[in-house]
């Protein structure tokens, strides 16, 4: 049996015994709302840079939600890796490419007209499924693997293989990026 920190299913007010429940609830509602607003704004913005900035809002508020669940390490990793490194890269690429506004074509209008109702439907079904069976309640980390030490113990014993195999995944991503980005056969760099 695996005991990982159970971090799925944000959407339940956290209840940590050490702190006051109301404060948690307020923080949760605040940042969950911010997270959702950021996500919706990300979709609605037509300029890539605005979308990228909204994504930072989403990532950071998610980090706060993790923190409220008591997963300090994950919250820190979320801020450093996602809100920090990945988003810097994102904005960098957007600015380097000098991407303009999104162009509205017939295809994108159709995608909007079909996509948004579809998303609402899926969301509705999932929400009904979860709410009907479980209702609103509180969630917390049930087996309390929260500290960095415990996390790394899991990472280097029970989840050793996935952890190691991720290196192959990263390697192949780099390899693929190099293969695609290098100059093609027609445009040799060494001028032969």
């Amino acid at each position: 049996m695996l005991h990982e920190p159970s971090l799925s299913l944000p959407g339940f007010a956290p209840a940590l015994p050490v702190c006051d429940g109301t404060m948690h609830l307020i923080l949760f509602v605040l940042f969950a709302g911010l997270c959702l607003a950021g996500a919706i704004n990300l979709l609605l913005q037509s300029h890539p840079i605005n979308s990228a900035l909204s994504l930072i809002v989403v990532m950071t508020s998610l980090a706060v939600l993790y923190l409220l669940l008591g997963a300090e390490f994950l919250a820190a990793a979320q801020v450093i890796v996602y809100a920090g490194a990945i988003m810097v890269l994102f904005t960098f690429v957007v600015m380097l490419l000098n991407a303009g506004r999104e162009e509205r074509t017939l295809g994108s209008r159709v995608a909007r007209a079909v996509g948004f109702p579809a998303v609402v439907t899926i969301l509705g079904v999932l929400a009904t499924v979860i709410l009907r069976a479980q209702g609103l309640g509180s969630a917390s980390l049930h087996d309390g693997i929260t500290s960095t030490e415990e996390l790394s113990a899991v990472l280097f014993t029970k989840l050793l293989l996935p952890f190691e195999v991720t290196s192959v995944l990263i390697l192949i991503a780099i390899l693929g990026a190099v293969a695609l980005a290098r100059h093609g056969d027609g445009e040799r760099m060494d001028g032969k």
Partner: protein
Amino acid sequence: MNSVPDIYRILPEVILTLTGVLVMLVDASLPPGLPRRSLGWVAATGTAVAYLASIWQLSLPVGTGFYATVETSPFTVFFHALICGIVLVALLLSLDSLPEDSHHQGEYYALVVFGAVGMCLLTAAIELLVVFIALEISSIATYVLAGYRKETARGPEAAIKYFLLGSFATAFLLYGVALIFGATGTTQIYDIANLAPSAQNHSLVLAALALMLVGILFKVSAVPFHVWTPDVYEGAPSPVVALMSTAPKAAAFALLLRVVYEMFPTLHSVWAPLLSIVAVLSMTVGNLAALRQQNVKRMLAYSSIAHAGYLLAAFAGMGNAGIAAASFYVAAYAAMNVGIFAVVTVVSGYDENLPMIQDFRGLIYRSPLLGGLLIFFLASLVGIPFTGGFFGKFYSFSAAVGGGAVWLAIIGLLNSGLAAAYYLRLAFAAAQRPSDETGLTRSYEPRAGVAVIAALLFAVAATLILGIVPGDVLHAAQTGAHTLQPPPPTATEVIGIATTQPRVP
């Protein structure tokens, strides 16, 4: 847990990874401008060794390794051997068909071998985290390989399309994994199998199953999720299509078997009708669309969608019969599909000078051997006896009948008849007398080296063996099927239910 060292459980993957790293290192150390063709031989040798290592794994006792994240059993060995075989043939095919002066040969071979690592691991994984990472490895390799003809407009288009849709589909799978973790508190497939029936939130389990099916059915290009297939196959280089239309699909089917038969056996009444509907849709839509195609690769792309349908029909079968039939079909499909794309590669070359059906006119007069092989593989795709395709369909439809879905078998047979129409169109084109202005007379210069001959030989041999003496492979598939059944819950696991129900409202 057991005396077998963990590393033996993933020996083929380790060998493939080392081969990939070796190819990269040698590629980097060779001076620029030197031909990189020898790297292909390194990769092919490594894959052959990995094949032997998977066969050797049969001597290991069935069991798990690395804290119950991977498994070796006849089932995993069957798919490992199949995937290594496909990759080996695809590598041999690429050796002679990649342009000599390509700058990217080193990366190409390394990507193929690393992709094989992901596919092999996918069939061995019994932990959903490993499943996800393995699936990503194999997918990213194929995304990049699909866009390898950068100088054409279609190559990058294929890669981007495949990448965007593929990532979207993987997100569905991941969402499903997250939900099943929420419902059971574990990502280990055996534990899920034991905990899911008693999960408090049954609808969460159903939602997880549905989302995971979306992700996997995309990878096998079954019908509601098939739209990417023709464009990607058309844009990707032919040797890559030979690989990507078979090996990742074999791995994805292994995962599908594991998910439905091993992880959710109790939900048989839910997923069996669902997969039957998908099977009927895939066959019918695939075949009807293939009828209208003029481009050979697009036609074969739709044909591969139809074949995914025939294969999914086996999932209507009960337990072992269904698993064995599906495994056998994967092998038969792989043999003939790699074969036909090998012929297409040799005929129209890496740059595809001859993409249309009428370009194949008179092939049999130009090159009797190639024309004969083309017709042979087409016959197998139709499902004519003495070829692998016949027994594949036979077992698949018998499994469906055994599972009580006679209607599915009838629709499958009708579809096979429909499919014959477009396969025969290509066969007739190849057998027609060439007129002067056909493509073949214009530029026909097959590059048939030792490697490509070996690749064709392997594909023909596999198709013939599966068609004439299918007994051994079928036996292997059946042995594999027996090991895929979930173990009965043990006492500790039953206690585990109480302790791992995290969210009590």
